[in-house]
């Protein structure tokens, strides 16, 4: 583990859809083992930012680097680069016609051409670690949302990615299931994984983050450590945003 090592480097990227500027001159460096949580109102460009980082979306301006390599959908070795970046989506996106084990082992076997026996063994270990041993031969429809999302995380982990991207992975889940998924992510944090997490779970963000990025209107409005961000945000905009998560006691009219 080398905390000085730069894993992902984002230099002045901009991205627009039609007339709308979704990302406007964003720069960010992610170091090895660092956990960055990205928060912000909906439509502020959080998901687009993540999608630019593994080349699912092309940037209009600027550069994204994974190590020495440029990340862009149009570069020739983009599939090799994407292998090195794990991504977990809000809607799980497991393959419905494959069992959980097949879902997890497909990419390492087909994309990375690893041996079935070795992949199966690792898949079983990882699935056990997230509490899904009993579900291996079941199909996604037989699992709860939280179980599906845990399987999706394993599916990303087995590729041995250098960095993991989480795009609102608990947004579609019931509170109890949110917890089981977040616990898996906390476990990953303990293993010193490099992670970028987009979430609306503020308590979780505070617990897991090394750095909190507050994104609004396509800009990085704040980039601070979680203790500071959640207690004393530097900007009004961030304060307003954080206030939307607290409620005043209702004083009923008599």
């Amino acid at each position, binding site marked *: 583990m080398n905390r000085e090592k730069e894993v992902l480097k984002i230099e002045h990227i901009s991205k627009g859809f039609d007339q709308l500027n979704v990302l406007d001159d964003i720069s960010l460096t992610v170091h090895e083992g660092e956990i960055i949580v990205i928060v912000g109102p909906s439509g502020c460009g959080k998901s687009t930012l993540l999608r630019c980082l593994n080349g699912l979306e092309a940037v209009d301006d600027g550069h994204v680097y994974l190590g020495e390599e440029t990340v862009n959908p149009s570069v020739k070795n983009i599939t090799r680069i994407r292998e090195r970046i794990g991504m977990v989506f809000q809607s799980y*996106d497991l393959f419905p016609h494959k069992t959980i084990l097949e879902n997890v082992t497909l990419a390492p076997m087909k994309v990375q051409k690893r041996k079935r026996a070795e992949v199966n063994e690792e898949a079983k270990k990882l699935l056990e670690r997230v509490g899904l041993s009993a579900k291996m031969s079941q199909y996604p429809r037989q699992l709860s949302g939280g179980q599906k999302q845990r399987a999706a995380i394993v599916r990303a982990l087995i590729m041995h990615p250098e960095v993991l991207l989480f795009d609102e992975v608990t947004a579609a889940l019931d509170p109890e299931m949110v917890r089981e998924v977040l616990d898996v992510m906390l476990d990953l944090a303990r293993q010193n994984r490099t992670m970028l997490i987009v979430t609306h779970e503020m308590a979780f963000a505070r617990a897991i983050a090394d750095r909190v990025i507050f994104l609004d209107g396509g800009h990085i409005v704040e980039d601070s450590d979680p203790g500071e961000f959640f207690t004393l945000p530097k900007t009004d905009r961030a304060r307003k945003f954080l206030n939307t998560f607290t409620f005043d006691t209702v004083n009923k009219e008599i």
Partner: protein
Amino acid sequence: MFDPKVAEMLLIGTKDTLYMTLVSTLFGYLLGLPFGVILNLTRKNGLHPNKIVYGIGDFICNIVRSIPFLILLILLIPFTRFIVGKSYGSTATIVPLVVCSAPYIARIVESSLNEVDEGVVEAAKAMGASTLQIIFKVLFVEARVSLFTGAVITTGLLLGYSAMSGTVGGGGLGDIAVRYGYYRWQADIMVVTVLLLIVIFQVIQNLGMYFSGRLDHRKKR
């Protein structure tokens, strides 16, 4: 009711009909499947959007499908003669059947593939899968129920079309129905051919639905 000669004729007719239907479905898919994949890949939100390629494919597809089969059969006579050597009989009928079914199949394949959840395709992309890997390991696998159902429907359609080709000497049960039932007023033979066609259709459809149910892992059995 029938002498052995008629029975034999009906047997040969049934064989010819099955031969035309199955072989033309097979060749139709050899052409139509890649065609449909190309349409899916090059469409607006496809993996490789390409307006020109999609536009041309789309145009060819619509043109061929808008020509009634009977007209296509006649239009293609010189082409059929060039490929098979003659323009009548069951082998010759396969040519227009394939030409007519390929664009139809392409459309069915395209719409089956379009239905695969974009998120699932994106997940595969994010794992570093190449386009070919996505086609074979994700699209075909996830769309297999729909692809298979499409093939069953196509087979049924081609069964009907092969009978239609009987009007121009195409061979098979349709040919018998037209020659005996229509030109010679032998209603009994026509009824039997129609019954045979119904039975064949039922077998294809029911077998197809049985297998497509077995392929489906999304719903409870």
